[in-house]
Every structure is written in C-alpha cells, then in structure tokens.
C-alpha cells in the first residue's frame, strides 16, 4: 500500500487559501469587460454573497458560466463565503441546468447566460457598482471550510448524471500541487481557451491562479485568431487549451503566440502530428495533462516535435497496473467516496522508471472533444426509438483534436427495404439532439438488415466496422489492387495480355474467408483479377456467357504479386486465362464472352 500524503497543518492552510498571494491591487482578471484587481474581486464576491439565500444542510449554488470567468470567480467566492458548496452542471444546456435546479440541494443558480433565471451575476455586479453599493469587502485570504465544497456533475450523455463531491483538500490541494509542479506563480497570466464550467477549465483557469497569485482571462476565445489576439493584447504567458484548438492554432503564422511560455492541453490525447506542427511553428512544447473528474490530476507529459513520451505521475500520485492491465491510482485528489487505490478503466503499460503509457479505455466510455460519452447510453437511447429494431454504436479514432467519433448501425423496424433511410437518419439525429451534446451524436448512421452478434450478444468490433467499410484499424477498407503495366502480344493466331498485380495485405476481399488463414476466393479472382484484365485486353467483347475447365490450384495470400494472363485465339468469344505466382499456377480456365460489347 503506497503511503498517503500527510501535510503539516500550516502547510495545509497555505494550500487552501484563495487570494492569499495577491496584493490588493494585483490584477486577477484581464480582458473582456476590463481588468479587475484582487480588491475588486473581494468586493464583488461580497455583493454576491449578500444577495444569496442562507445556507442549509448540503446546500449548493449551481454555477453556469460560459462568458465571463471573472463573474464565475466572484460567484464561486461569494457562494463559499455564504456557506454554500458550489455545483457545476454537466453542460450549460438548459434542460441539464433546469433538472439540477429542481433538486432540493440547489439553493440558487448563479450564471452569466441569457437564461432569464435568477441570479445573473454580471447584472448583479453591474447594478451594484452603478448604485455605489458599499457592501463591506470580503477579507483575503479566503479559506473555504474543510469538507465538500464542490459537486461536479458528469453525464455522459443521457439525462442521468453522476455527482462527484470534491472536498477542499481534493480541489484546492490539486490546484496548489499543479502550481508547485509547473511553477505557476504570481507572474502567471493565463488565457483560458476552455470553458471554466468544465473541471479542467475551472482548475487551470480559475483555481490555479486564485491559489497561486496569478491572473486569468475573462473571455474564453475559441477560434485561433481570437486566441492569438487575446494572448497578444494581454501579454499572457500561459495558455490552457484542448487538442482541437491546438490543431487550429498550428495554422497561425509563426510568432502569433509570442509571449507564451507554457501551453497546457487536456481532455483527450494530442495527436503526434498536431504536437509536431504546433511545437515547430511556435518553438513551444505542450504540457499534456491526464486526469479525470473522479481521480483528479494523475500525470503529465511534455510534447515536443517527436513521438509522444510516457506519462509521468504528479508528485504524490501513485500509479500501478492491475493484473488486467488497468491503471490504479492513489492520490490525495482521488474522490473521497471511492476506494483507494482506485482502479480506473484506463488501460496502461508501466515502464521501469514509474512512468506509463496510456493504451485506451476498457469500458464503453470514450472522450469526444473532451466530453465523456458512454456508448451503451447512446445505444440505449437509440434503441428506444419507435422505428428502431436493433442498434450498435462504436467509436473510432478521429483525426484532428476530436479524439473519437461515434458511428451507429441501425436495424430499422420492418427491414431496410421498407423505409427511406435518409429520413430515419434525420429523425434519429433530431431525437438524439434533444438529449445529447452535438459531439455525442453519431457522425454516421448506416442501416443494416442485422447487427452482427456473437452468441453472448456481444458485437465483434471488426465486423461492426465492416458495416461502415472500415478495417479493424479504423482505416477505410481497401478495395484497390495494385496493377502493374500491361504487356500485349499479338500474332496472326492469337492475342494475349499479361498484367502483374499486387494484392495488398489489407485487401478487403481477404476478410471473412478462413479466419487466420486469409486467401483470395476463386470468385473474387474471377471478378477482380480476370474479368478486368479481359475487359482491358479485349474491350470489344461483351458479357460472359459460359465458363469451362475452371481450376483454382494455388493459393493467393495477402501481399502476393501474381501475373494475370488472358489469351484469345480465333475461336469466337473464347478467352483462356491463367493466374500464376512465379512458377506456381494459381488459376486457369476458359471463358466464352459475347462477341458484341454492350455499352
């Protein structure tokens, strides 16, 4: 059992202070509607605190912010000061917020949206400031109470949410540890290009600067030009972003992000190509963070132009690999209700030096654009639609920063013949959009007669992928042979054409024939090798009318190069063919074709 981190009481208090390292006139928030100092934040937090209902047992203020990070910070401090814990909804979607608002624990919703709900924090702050409200300021440092101070709701996908309660020690301890690890201190100016309502955004773009004396951008720029402008105008030195945005940023001219010293990326793996182009363009490595809502931060790695390195656990985080190859984490940031060490669904491989490689997930959860999606939940939701008989959803790796994308194979009620498929695809997507984030909606829906299932009901991934014309690797199925140059010979009696052709290892027709012993079936040899060669050699001939003396005497296996030879003598419509591999004859036979080609 690895040791548990123990801090002395003094260290503990220092770790949990908010605004303890800012001077009164230090800028805490910049850009957007104007710079704000630590003093401004303490005053605005006091105004919010005063406007809130009193705390009751387990009461929470729901924070819904997507525009002004300063307003969110003020709301957070105000709510904590009033004795409420705070809660983050799984998304800013109206239905998600309203569902949480109905819970008895929710004392109030604090937001900066157009939802028309009380309390719009931006309006409250503006009004108080115009009216010269002289509410006494809060006093720095603010030390939240011990125990649970935040609940993070994650959903995957359907209305069912999971609540993760974060104690002061987990949440602020992690922010403090991140600051120590990456030396984020009073000089840090952080541009948050990820929404602060996501735990990664909240931790890196609000709690980290508030605990360490740094400052954060009020805005959350999205497009690359907007990010560059925000960095340039603010003189920021730290960018907190996600893979898809890094890909977009890598297209900016060199120098567009000058001033940045550190770039953080999380929520999904950073593709090698993106890491390379970004770090070469800006001569700036990217620090990738691995973590989750339930475990907190686990590890980091620095990405340069080369291939991805292994993950290095954060100080105080102990990782191990279970006998099933899963990642086991013990750290002070693991959610208090979970067993320690906590076994995650991540599959890893440990290195001797304590670092590890991340190989993927072992459950049906994937991350798409940073959002966790449960494949079984998406399947269940589609399955309950009236027009759906059966469904299977799979995730494949997606290019760029999306991470994954979903594909759905659907058996419509009444079979695929009886239904205009495009209509059903549109209907299903529309239904899915009522419940799911756009990222969670399958990008492709195909309609099939039957979902391939094993006797135990499981859907073999490779066979599902074939429904989308994809190989097990996720690459498109290869239907293409590699033809060489044809060689034509002609004399008075006969005319022939020889063509070499390589049959690629991943040639699609190898699938499904004798598992673990792939070979090219005779019918495929006829259809894909012989008939195209006949058509090339004798375009004047029409359809095949008969075949005789057909023999498949040698195997054609993945990667073979064979010679296809077709020869015509004076007998009308008669073509002899031969396929050979070096000296071995693989196939021979005679075809009779119509003399008049049909266009």
């Amino acid at each position, binding site marked *: 059992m690895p040791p548990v981190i123990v801090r002395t009481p003094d260290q503990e208090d220092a770790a949990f202070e908010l605004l303890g390292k800012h001077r009164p006139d230090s800028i805490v928030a910049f850009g957007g509607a104007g710079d704000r100092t630590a003093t401004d934040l303490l005053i605005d937090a006091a105004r919010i605190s005063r406007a809130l209902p009193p705390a009751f047992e387990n009461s929470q203020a729901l924070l819904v912010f997507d525009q002004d990070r300063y307003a969110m910070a003020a709301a957070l401090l105000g709510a904590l000061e009033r004795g409420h814990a705070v809660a983050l909804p799984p998304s800013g979607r109206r239905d998600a917020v309203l569902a949480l608002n109905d819970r008895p624990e929710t004392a109030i919703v604090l937001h900066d949206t157009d939802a028309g709900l009380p309390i719009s924090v931006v309006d409250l702050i503006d009004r108080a400031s115009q009216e010269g409200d002289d509410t006494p300021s809060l006093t720095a440092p603010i030390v939240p109470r011990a125990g649970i101070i935040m609940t993070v709701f994650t959903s995957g996908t359907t209305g069912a949410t999971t609540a993760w309660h974060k104690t002061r020690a987990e949440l602020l301890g992690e922010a403090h540890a991140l600051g120590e690890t990456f030396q984020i201190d009073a000089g840090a100016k952080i541009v948050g290009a990820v929404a602060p309502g996501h735990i990664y955004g909240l931790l890196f773009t609000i709690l980290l600067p508030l605990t360490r004396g740094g400052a954060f951008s009020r805005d959350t720029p*999205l*497009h690359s030009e*907007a990010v560059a*402008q925000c960095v340039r105008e603010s003189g920021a030195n730290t960018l907190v972003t996600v893979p898809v945005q890094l890909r977009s940023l890598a297209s900016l001219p060199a120098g567009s992000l000058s001033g940045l010293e550190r770039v953080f990326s999380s929520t999904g793996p950073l593709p090698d190509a993106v890491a390379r182009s970004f770090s070469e363009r800006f001569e700036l490595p990217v620090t990738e963070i691995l973590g989750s809502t339930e475990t907190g931060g686990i590890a980091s790695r620095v990405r340069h132009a080369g291939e991805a390195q292994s993950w290095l656990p954060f100080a105080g985080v102990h990782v191990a690999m279970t006998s099933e190859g899963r990642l086991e984490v013990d750290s002070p940031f693991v959610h208090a209700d979970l067993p320690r060490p906590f076994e995650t669904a991540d599959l890893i491989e440990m290195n001797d030096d304590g670092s590890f490689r991340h190989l993927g997930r072992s459950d049906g959860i994937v991350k798409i654009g940073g959002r966790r999606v449960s494949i079984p939940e998406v399947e269940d939701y589609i399955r309950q639609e009236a027009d759906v008989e059966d469904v299977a959803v799979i995730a494949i790796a*997606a290019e760029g920063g999306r991470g994954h994308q979903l594909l759905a194979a659907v058996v419509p009620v009444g079979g695929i013949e009886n239904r205009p498929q495009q209509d059903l695809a549109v209907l299903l997507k529309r239904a899915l*959009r009522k419940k799911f984030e*756009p990222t969670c909606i399958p990008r492709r829906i195909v309609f099939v007669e039957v979902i391939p299932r094993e006797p135990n009901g499981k859907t073999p991934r490779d066979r599902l992928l074939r429904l989308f014309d994809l190989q097990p690797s996720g690459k498109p199925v290869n239907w293409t042979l590699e033809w060489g140059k044809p060689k034509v010979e002609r004399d008075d009696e006969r005319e022939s054409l020889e063509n070499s052709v390589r049959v690629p290892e991943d040639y699609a027709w190898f699938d499904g024939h004798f598992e673990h012993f792939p070979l090219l079936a005779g019918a495929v040899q006829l259809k894909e090798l012989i008939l195209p060669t006949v058509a090339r050699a004798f375009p004047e001939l029409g359809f095949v009318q008969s075949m005789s003396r057909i023999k498949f005497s040698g195997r054609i296996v993945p990667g073979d190069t064979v010679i296809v030879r077709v020869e015509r003598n004076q007998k009308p419509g008669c073509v002899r063919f031969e396929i050979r591999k070096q000296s071995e004859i693989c196939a021979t036979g005679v075809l009779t074709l119509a003399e008049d080609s049909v266009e």
Partner: protein
Amino acid sequence: MHESLEDQLKDLIVESLALEDVDPSEINTDDALFVDGLGLDSIDALELALAIQEKFGVVTSPDDERNRELFYSVKTLAEFVRSKTDAG
C-alpha cells in the same frame, strides 16, 4: 460550368467534417449550421475554419462573436469568403 461558392462550401462542410450521411445538396443555404440546423458543434467550427482557410486562404476573425455570425449558415459564410477574396 463552375460550382457556385455556396455549393463549394456545402461540399467542404460535408467533406471536412466527415458528415458521410449528409448530402451537400440537402444543406439549405440559409439554414443554421450549428446546434439547431445541421447540429454542428464548437469542434466542427474549428475544423471548418481550418478547412476554409486551407481552401480559400481566408482566416477567421479575432472576434469570436463575429465568427459566430460568419459561421451561422452557408449564406453568411459565402458572403464572408467573398468579401475577403474580393478585397484581396
């Protein structure tokens, strides 16, 4: 005959976002691309911005509010691309 800019953009949307079950001709020029209409998301916005930059050499605005307006529909996108390419 050259394809109109609007049709080129529809092809680009389907191709760059891998919307394989959407036919470009089904996208209405005036319809919202994001959330309500085609259901695109913020990741698509970034992917699409990159694709437009690569194909037309047009970069997005430093103002995201303006970008939201520019990316509202095929029509607004086409107007934006025209204004940039004509000026350039």
